[in-house]
């Protein structure tokens, strides 16, 4: 098919590069430089979609971010699918494959359209809330049907092949929008040497200068644009970001700019190293908002029929893309700008049927020019209804009186295929409002302008200034001031000369009255994407939805992908009229990011897949991998969970590992434990304040277990701390708690007890920790150490320094398994050497690597808790039966002490740590099983506790568990029950939580 609407010359398209694309399965051609929308219009494609609710045919209305109708599904392959592309902002590329998002079987003939037509009157706002209620049980079925109609485009079903990234940028001046205002501001600021970023959402910078009739320096305005861009490009500190949308402006001038880097080239990045898009996180000292203004359409009956467009869009398509989107045009306007579309149309050699101007006696230069061209001008009038269904066939025109909201005078029907409307301009204030500032209404420009935001200046059309000479002057000043505010002096910018245009004042008109009352007239669309009509807004206000926020939520006004860029101000004005309020009294709804939608992928950046969250490894990780370890996620760490041999199941592996430790010797990589080096003369005092137990007497080279509480008395961490010197301690923390505990110590030191002389330094990563545990641990270690390991020289809970495998080491004799244990600590760079040296004796001693699961079984047999598993933030040291670890008479009221004497923490029936022994020895209780005393009671049952840890012990030969049980310490020997999901009830006996070697003989050998 040929490009029937393409002009023979003009526009900023590259006619040497013909691009082929498909829309709804049909093949078309366009040119490099086209948007998908301009290419469709060039090819005479009128209907591009069906509307969401009523399935009415819809065409392209706008040429930019405000387009509500031309929403497309893009992508030739499944993985490259992108829903809801705005055709007006999508550059055309070869092979582009687009589909309408609605319409079945197709957009030309949509079966749903019939339902829309018939059901339309019932489907106003509030429709869902008023029906589908009976019978209650049917709602889920109704909902299934409602959901069938939901959504615009569709999500891909495959993973995204593209990559995305982020840049963090800092600048003195961020300029948003590269129209005349933005370009001038950037130039002024750039010349000062300040760091400037200039971004614009469009393919080319220049804004309205790319389609304006105004000349600069007596020449086509685009020439000036090229000059300015060329100069900016030479400035090393200026970053030009075309195809980049400022989507959010957050607190303290933090902006997110989304740069599309390959979306204009192909479905997926042409080169695998390219990123599809890049989010710039910009912290700007000053922001200049130069985002222009969106034209407002007029609201009249059937204003959604394809062929109804914005005046400015008509001009843009003609001047920028050399596309005339119709044959015979009627313009309906409230201002001089509407005339430009008619002039452009006429110059393109097509017929202008009439300009219908709502003003009684317009007198601007444009008006005169139109008159001179012999274009018919109908004043004091407006189009109040469009005719046609799949394409405009005519415009019904009448005199209007905006003040009384009535039609006046005679009516006329004009035959045409395009109606372009302009109801004035709405400054693009969005970004100025993202941090909560409300825009301000200005009667003189009939629009909202940005309110005051610290560090932000608005210039150009966004500031309600439309005359080009003033825009340029304001912008130069704003650029200069922003640079100055950032400490840079500006040499000055010479402004191009502009031929002054005399403009006559616009008139305020939003909805055009109809012969019939709004509720009875043909639909007058306010929000095209969501099918919100003037009647819908009237119904909402009638039903008591008087706040504009209620109107929005009841009607869905502005809820769509265009976020009401086209319709919101009209909607507010209509609501204001109905409520007998002024527009500022009615106010706007809240502007929120995003300005236009951005893909999740772009927002996520590189932080996905294996980079979603850091994986932390110990120095021995490579060995574990080689040995076939299965890993467990503990915080960010990957810890060996167990080391299966051959086809072993986890159970088998763990049983084997447990036996190895109890019978021979096992080794655990415990490097992930948090380690904090504490030095200073008050180190001991400090430790005494943050731990529950006593530290005053701990001698050098002695270790002690400590328990840490929050000041609410609840256990938060535990670990062994060693006194390395009178002023020197090494504290260990749980793996998950390491960072938090270091911060906790600093918090107390820096805020409460700065007078204590103590310093904390994290050495978690510095020391690798290898836990050698089992009856043969001494024999094995003695093979490779010079430390005297004899029982009486190096006692339990002591620390020694010496060589292990030729590496200087600290060895701690502590035990989490209940066996004879040496924790070997070496500087992490030497860990692999030591580990391998130990494994050189693997077969001689039966050395077995074990993982966290085995560690859990072994420690549970000993009744040792895991904070976070056997505690949950509601457990005190006393609940754990750890009174032995509480220094009740320490001189300083340690953290958590006071809270233990509150009424609730003193209760006798608190949940306390106990052991459970299943009556059936083969049974392993479920971790998380709830405990009851009477299994026969009916639901809801009285629950008295739950199982926190549960394993099968090869050493004990039966299952066993730890549990928190109400009043548990007084229930020894009682039977308790666990009613399970499968209906079985498991019986267990309450026993001491220490199942093995209660006297601690094994670890003391």
């Amino acid at each position, binding site marked *: 098919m040929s490009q029937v609407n393409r002009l023979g010359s003009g526009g900023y398209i590259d006619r040497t590069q013909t691009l082929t694309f498909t829309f709804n399965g049909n093949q078309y051609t366009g040119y490099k430089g086209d948007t998908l929308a301009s290419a469709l219009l060039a090819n005479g494609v009128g209907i591009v979609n069906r509307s969401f609710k009523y399935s009415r045919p819809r065409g392209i209305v706008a040429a930019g971010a405000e387009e509500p109708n031309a929403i497309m599904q893009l992508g030739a392959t499944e993985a490259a699918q992108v829903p809801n592309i705005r055709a007006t902002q999508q550059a055309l590329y070869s092979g582009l494959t687009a589909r309408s998002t609605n319409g079945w079987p197709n957009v030309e003939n949509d079966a749903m359209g019939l339902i829309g037509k018939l059901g339309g009157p019932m489907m106003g706002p509030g429709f869902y809330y008023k029906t589908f209620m009976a019978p209650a049980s049917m709602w*889920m079925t109704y909902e299934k049907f409602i*959901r069938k109609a939901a959504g615009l485009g569709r999500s891909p079903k495959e993973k995204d092949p593209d990559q995305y990234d982020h840049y963090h940028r800092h600048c003195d001046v961020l300029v948003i929008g590269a129209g005349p205002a933005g370009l001038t501001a950037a130039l002024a600021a750039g010349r000062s040497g300040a760091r400037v970023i200039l971004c614009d959402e469009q393919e080319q910078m220049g804004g309205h200068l790319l389609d304006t009739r105004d000349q600069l320096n007596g020449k086509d305005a685009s020439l000036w644009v090229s000059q300015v861009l060329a100069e900016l490009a030479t400035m090393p500190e200026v970053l030009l970001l075309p195809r980049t949308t400022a989507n959010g402006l957050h607190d303290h001038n933090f902006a997110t700019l989304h740069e599309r880097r390959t979306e204009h080239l192909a479905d997926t990045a042409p080169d695998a190293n390219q990123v599809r898009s890049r989010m710039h996180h910009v912290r700007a000292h000053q922001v200049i908002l130069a985002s222009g203004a969106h034209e407002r359409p007029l609201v009249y009956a059937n204003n959604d029929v394809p062929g109804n467009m914005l005046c400015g869009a008509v001009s843009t398509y003609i001047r920028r893309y050399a596309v005339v989107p119709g044959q015979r045009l009627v313009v309906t306007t409230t201002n001089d700008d509407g005339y430009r579309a008619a002039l452009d149309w006429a110059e393109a050699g097509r017929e202008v049927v009439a300009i219908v101007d709502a003003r009684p006696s317009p007198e601007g230069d444009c008006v005169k020019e139109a008159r001179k061209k012999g274009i018919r001008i109908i004043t004091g009038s407006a189009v109040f209804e469009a005719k046609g269904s799949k394409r405009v066939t005519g415009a019904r025109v009448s005199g209007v009186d905006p003040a009384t909201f009535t039609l006046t005078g005679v009516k006329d029907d004009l035959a045409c295929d395009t109606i372009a409307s302009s109801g004035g301009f709405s400054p693009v204030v969005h970004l100025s409002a993202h941090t909560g500032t409300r825009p301000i209404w200005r009667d003189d420009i009939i629009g909202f302008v940005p309110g005051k935001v610290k560090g932000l200046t608005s210039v150009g059309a966004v500031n309600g200034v439309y005359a080009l000479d003033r825009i340029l002057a304001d912008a130069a000043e704003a650029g200069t001031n922003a640079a100055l505010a950032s400490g840079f002096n500006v040499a000055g910018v010479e402004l191009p000369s502009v031929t002054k245009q005399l403009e006559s004042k616009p008139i305020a008109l939003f909805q055009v009255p109809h012969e019939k009352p709004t509720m009875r007239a043909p639909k007058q669309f306010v929000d095209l994407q969501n099918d919100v009509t003037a009647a819908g807004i009237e119904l909402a206000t009638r039903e*008591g939805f*008087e706040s504009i926020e209620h109107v929005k939520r009841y009607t869905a006004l502005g809820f769509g992908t265009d976020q009401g860029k086209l319709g919101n101000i009209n909607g507010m004005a209509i609501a204001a009229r109905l409520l007998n309020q002024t527009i500022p009294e009615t106010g706007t709804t809240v502007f929120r990011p995003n300005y236009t939608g951005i893909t999740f992928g772009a927002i996520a950046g590189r932080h996905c897949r294996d980079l979603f969250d850091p994986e932390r490894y110990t120095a021995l990780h490579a060995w574990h991998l080689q040995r076939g370890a299965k890993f467990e*996620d503990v915080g960010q760490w990957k810890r060996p969970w167990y080391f299966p041999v051959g086809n072993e199941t986890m159970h088998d592996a763990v049983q084997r590992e447990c036996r190895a430790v109890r019978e021979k010797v096992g080794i655990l990589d415990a490097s992930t434990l948090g380690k904090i080096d504490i030095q200073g003369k008050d180190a001991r005092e400090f430790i005494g304040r943050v731990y529950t137990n006593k530290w005053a007497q701990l001698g050098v080279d002695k270790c002690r277990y400590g328990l840490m509480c929050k000041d609410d008395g609840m256990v938060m961490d535990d670990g062994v701390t060693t006194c390395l010197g009178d002023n020197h301690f090494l504290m260990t923390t749980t793996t998950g708690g390491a960072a938090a505990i270091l911060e906790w110590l600093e918090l107390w030191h820096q805020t409460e007890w700065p007078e204590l002389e103590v310093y904390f330094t994290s050495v978690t990563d510095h020391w690798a920790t290898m836990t050698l545990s089992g009856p043969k641990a001494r024999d094995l270690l003695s093979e490779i150490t010079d430390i005297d390991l004899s029982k009486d020289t190096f006692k339990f809970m002591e620390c020694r320094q010496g060589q292990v495998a030729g590496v200087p080491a600290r060895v701690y004799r502590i035990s989490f398994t209940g066996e004879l244990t040496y924790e070997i600590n070496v500087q992490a760079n030497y860990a692999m050497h030591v580990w391998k040296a130990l494994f050189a004796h693997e077969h001689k001693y039966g050395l077995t690597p074990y993982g966290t699961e085995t560690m859990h079984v072994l420690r549970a047999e000993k009744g040792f808790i895991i904070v976070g598993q056997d505690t949950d*933030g509601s457990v005190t040291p006393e609940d754990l039966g750890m009174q032995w670890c509480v220094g009740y008479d320490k001189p300083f009221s340690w953290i958590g002490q006071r809270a233990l004497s509150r009424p609730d923490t003193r209760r006798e029936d608190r949940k306390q740590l106990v052991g459970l022994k299943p009556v059936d020895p083969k049974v392993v209780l479920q971790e998380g099983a*709830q405990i009851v005393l009477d299994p026969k009671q009916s639901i809801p049952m009285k629950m008295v506790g739950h199982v926190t840890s549960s394993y099968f012990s090869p050493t004990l030969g039966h299952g066993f568990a730890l549990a928190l049980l109400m009043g548990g310490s007084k229930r020894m020997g009682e039977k308790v029950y666990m009613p399970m999901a499968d209906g079985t009830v498991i019986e267990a006996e309450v026993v001491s939580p220490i199942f093995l070697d209660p006297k601690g003989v094994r670890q003391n050998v």
Partner: protein
Amino acid sequence: MQRYSGFGLAKHALTHNENWQRLWRNPTPKKKYDVIIVGAGGHGLATAYYLAKEHGITNVAVIEKGWLGGGNTARNTTIVRSNYLWDEAAALYEHAMKLWEGLSQDLNYNVMFSQRGVLNLGHTLQDMRDIQRRVNANRLNGIDGEVLDTQQVQEICPILNCSADARFPVLGASWQPRAGVARHDAVAWGFARGADALGVDLIQQTEVIGMRIEDGQIVGVETNRGFIGAETVGCVAAGNSSVLAKMAGIKLPLESHPLQALVSEPIKPILDTVVMSNHVHGYASQSDKGDLVIGAGIDGYNGYGQRGSYPTIEHTLQAIVEMFPVFSRVRMNRQWGGIVDTCPDACPILSATPVKGLFFNCGWGTGGFKATPGSGNVFAWTLAKGYAHPLAAPFSIDRFVSGKLIDEHGAAGVAH
């Protein structure tokens, strides 16, 4: 009150929808009421509704500084579930769940309560222990739920990334089939319409700026439109509760934080259940309009700005892409924030105060939408009788003194 029905819709269509009545009046405040509710969020409106309906107290005003339902009720991600861990909380939320199940019919307003089920994913062994514990407790409390393994999760939600090479593989989930979502605005409007019909005055655009207390007894509230009297005042002001408390000389154990949420552009239905993950920190459902409704964690600082920081949104979407890689090319449409009144134990406060006649219903924080009918119901009872409803009693403010906290952090790890 005009009854709503499908038949009525057709009838009104014939008269061009010109005969619909207001859902609520716009009354001038009276000088004195029996009860004043401060805050016309879902909870305040539900309180008024049940006061009138179940206790016959109709001389009631609900005073709202903005538009009704415009606080957190307007901004939440609408997840409704009752699978809480501790008995006290579970009982309260399950009470609400039962009311949800008949709410559309009771209010004659379709709140679109959709019981499409909620998955709470587990990614670590400890997650799975916690899930087992909670589901077991739910079952013995008579609340539906089961523990699913990875395979079963994948069957319920085929687009979820359940592969073993995910950064945090899905090990399983808890599944509450009766849980789901509801249309949040409709909940506020339905309760408002119901309360109004029973005679309650809904007074919008009126801010309470002071409390008048005489001899330790509340006698009314000062507003920007003058004094309004009542000897029973219930404050249901969510994020602004501390501000109201200060007017009465009371401190609450609350911090108001920004909590953000976002929606994608509408896409064809692809996610038919609610998926939440505390561990990777994000959750999502898909509304009947087609947008993905996605929630985040709270921002750490206090904030009354109804907006939070961008990194929170960024992190949430990273989590969503991690869970649903197919959504990488779906676009985020809009983000916003609410002011959540977080309590140290992640449980609400339903309580009398040292001031006679003054009660607070607050502290619902990140998760009170699901409780709306239940909260209103027990709070109305409390206001009517002057002492706590049995389900409300454990949530007295005294618990912070005695230490009897009900720590639901596990259940509220991410906001919902």
